[in-house]
């Protein structure tokens, strides 16, 4: 069952107070803790026993599935391979996330390798939060991989958030878009202390009239470091946009490399990137409304990562 610590981790990464409604699969320290399927959502362990396969029936509407992972075992590095098959016309929200509690000096980590197949005209919202806590000195490592294939007219919205406490993160997002499909990725990463986070994104606009928008918001506190790569490749008449903003606080560093590749004459690709401190006029404005300097900084960062 869930103990107090599990509940805190679940609350933070999946916004859950106890067990969720509908289908879910909770993984703790590399093992299945609890699972529930629904009439339209099936969850089974894959043949290799290394993860789960989540199948959403075609035409499913307004259902959700929660698949949080919690880690609190010293020295464990949990690797999991999960597949999501979203049937044609289905509309579903998938809430994933990993919470690490590190109580020792040994490294703990999780690598969630997720692949998605989004059927024709299906709509998926994928929310993933990463968070680590605990008094232990061990490093907390999260290396997620998300690969998504989108059929004709499919839509996917992915919200990828790393809240705090993660020492090392190496993320890979890959997407291939079919005709008329729409992909929106929003990534928010906050690092502090000596933490590092790398995010690599490869988006291929394969089908005619496919559209992709990749938004990245990074905040580097302390001496932390973030590296962001976004490659968008257009192979058809399509539209793609990359927007990456980074706020440097203290002595943080950032490298941002948006890259656009148009292999079709009707491709439309744009990007905007910015790195800098919090703008002075924003601070002055909030202070003129009565906030102190520190409150103004917090409010701006909170909005930026919202």
């Amino acid at each position, binding site marked *: 069952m869930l103990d107090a610590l599990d509940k805190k981790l679940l609350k933070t990464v999946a916004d859950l107070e106890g067990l969720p409604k509908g289908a879910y699969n909770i993984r703790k320290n590399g093992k299945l803790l609890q699972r529930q399927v629904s009439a339209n959502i099936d969850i089974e362990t894959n043949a290799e026993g290394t993860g789960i396969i989540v199948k959403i029936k075609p035409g499913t509407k307004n259902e959700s599935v929660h698949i949080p992972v919690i880690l609190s075992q010293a020295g464990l590095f949990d690797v999991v391979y999960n597949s999501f098959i979203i049937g044609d016309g289905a509309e579903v929200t998938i809430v994933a996330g990993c919470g690490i509690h590190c109580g020792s000096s040994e490294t703990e980590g999780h690598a969630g390798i997720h692949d998605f197949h989004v059927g024709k005209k299906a709509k998926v919202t994928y929310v993933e939060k990463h968070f680590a806590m605990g008094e232990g000195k061990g490093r907390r490592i999260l290396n997620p991989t998300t690969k998504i294939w989108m059929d004709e007219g499919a839509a996917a919205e992915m919200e990828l958030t790393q809240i705090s406490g993660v020492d090392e993160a190496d993320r890979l997002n890959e997407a291939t878009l079919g005709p008329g499909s729409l992909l929106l990725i929003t990534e928010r990463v906050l690092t502090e202390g000596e933490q590092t986070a790398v995010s690599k994104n490869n988006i291929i606009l394969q089908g005619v009239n496919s559209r992709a928008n990749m938004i990245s918001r990074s905040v580097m506190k302390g001496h932390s470091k973030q590296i962001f790569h976004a490659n968008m490749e257009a192979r058809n008449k399509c539209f793609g946009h990359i927007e990456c903003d980074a706020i440097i606080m203290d002595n943080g560093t950032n490298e941002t490399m948006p890259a656009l590749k148009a292999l079709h004459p009707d491709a439309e690709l744009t990007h905007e990137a910015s790195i800098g401190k919090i703008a002075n*006029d924003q601070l*002055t404005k909030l*202070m003129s409304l009565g906030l*102190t300097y520190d409150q103004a900084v917090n409010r701006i960062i909170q909005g930026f990562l919202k």
Partner: protein
Amino acid sequence: MLTLNKVYFTAPGGEDGNGALRNIIDGIDFTFEKGKFYVITGPNGSGKTTLAKLIMGINPISSGSISFEGKDISGLSITERAKSGIAYSFQQPARFKGITFRDLLSIVTGVEDEKKFLEIVSRVGICPMSFLDKEIDATLSGGEIKKIELATTIAANPKLAIYDEPDTGIDLWTIGPMVHLLKKELTPQTATIVVSHNKAFLDVADVVLIIDKGKIAFNGQLKEALPLLTDLSICAYHHKCEGEQDAGCLR
């Protein structure tokens, strides 16, 4: 209510900021009284906005003192001045990411009360309700962001309200209602300072202040100010003017 006592603001001159020091505000003495509507005007670059920013504490004064309700506020931060009842409406309001009009109202009022927000929006009148959840970001038009700026200033219920060119970017049909609104918000216990060139504001001023070269060139009624205003209306940037390519001229 607010007294400026030999206020100076000195900064390096020259376009690159490496020139000799010069007095942007050159020893201003003035008292703003309760219950009055002040309009500050004057040529571009005369020091109007700088003066307004000195009052809010956005720029520190170089010498002299500022007192507000009998208390010396020269050393107070922007936050402390805001808390003591001064509010400032920026000429070019800051744009954020992920902060909405509702968020600003909640910061300024200290509450998250839907009823109160709706009351403020309807009191201000010039912002539709749909503005509440708008993000104060780069997608807002110049007029929209100015209306929101004005509303957040009014929502603070300030004792002293300072509006720096509130009419910039505002459509012609809103200027009348805006002037009316700012007049209506003035009470016998408060004072309003508007920095503007707009005749609509000058017409309703209790006191017109003309700033020129960092000094008060005139203070009094509009009709007495008219000869001087006409005199000063010559573009201050004419020596830089390059005809249609003119980049120095803002008006």
